[in-house]
């Protein structure tokens, strides 16, 4: 499938955005997403090819454009773990709501 991620040679994108003294991660949540991916991948929940496919081609292509890099990762991890039957959408929804109430 032809996807938005296939951008080699595309024109009109402007200068390469660089950042001085860039940290490895830019926020605590990025660290958590990264660790969850490495850990579930290492545990055999999915393989690297499945993950790459999930965060690039399989995303709703409007999401590919609007989501941050590690937001695409969380989307991909959730998608694969649900498909593998390891978690459910309801579990995610219920836990999110429970945590929201605790935070207030």
């Amino acid at each position: 499938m032809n996807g938005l991620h296939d951008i080699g040679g595309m024109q009109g994108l402007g200068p390469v955005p660089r950042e001085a003294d860039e940290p490895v991660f830019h926020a605590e949540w990025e660290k958590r997403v990264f660790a969850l991916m490495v850990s579930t991948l290492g545990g055999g929940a999915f393989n690297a090819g499945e993950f790459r496919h999930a965060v690039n081609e399989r995303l709703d292509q409007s999401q590919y454009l609007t989501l941050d890099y590690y937001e695409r990762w969380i989307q991909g991890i959730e998608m694969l773990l649900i498909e593998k039957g390891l978690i459910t959408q309801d579990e995610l929804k219920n836990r999110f709501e429970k945590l929201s109430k605790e935070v207030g």
Partner: protein
Amino acid sequence: MSNTGRNGQPHDTEPKDIDLRIKALESILLDKGLVDAQGLNEIIETYENRIGPHNGAQIVARAWTKSDYKKWLLNDGTAAIASLGFTGIEGADVVVVENTPNVHNVIVCTLCSCYPWPILGLPPRWYKSAAYRARVVMEPRSVLAEFGLVLEEQCEVRVWDSTAEVRYMVLPERPPGSEGLDEKSLAELVTRDSMIGVARL
């Protein structure tokens, strides 16, 4: 940081929501025993502190000082790199390409963000940016010029686009004036950008 808001997140993301979403997933996986808390923290610690361009720098310094090692590195990068203890995710198949006065190499992953983690760490944001991925294969000289590297016209540019399996690393040229230095001191001269190929030393 560029084009992002608080905590480095895109301006249209609610920081609280993304935090909670990840906490929800993490706590479910912890409850089910699919991940463990200590393991997660170790992964973060490893990639923040232990894995990074200082690993690649050791490889480069070894290649500069030991011709047999350099030959091995260019023939079978994966094995030569593993011999120094650098293995793991995103390092299963590494090809090392050598810069010379007449050939300059630069690496990219046009489709996503493939990068040799065990030797360079996690990629900087610009490496993952649409602009770098799109442009470096089309107009490498102007992209390199943005990084402050203006190549001589007669110097050939080779751009290496990662595949699903293969990761590349550039072996930069040994800088002038470094003749008397030992391997450890040489390693300190090697930068991340020189091993991506967007800088010379």
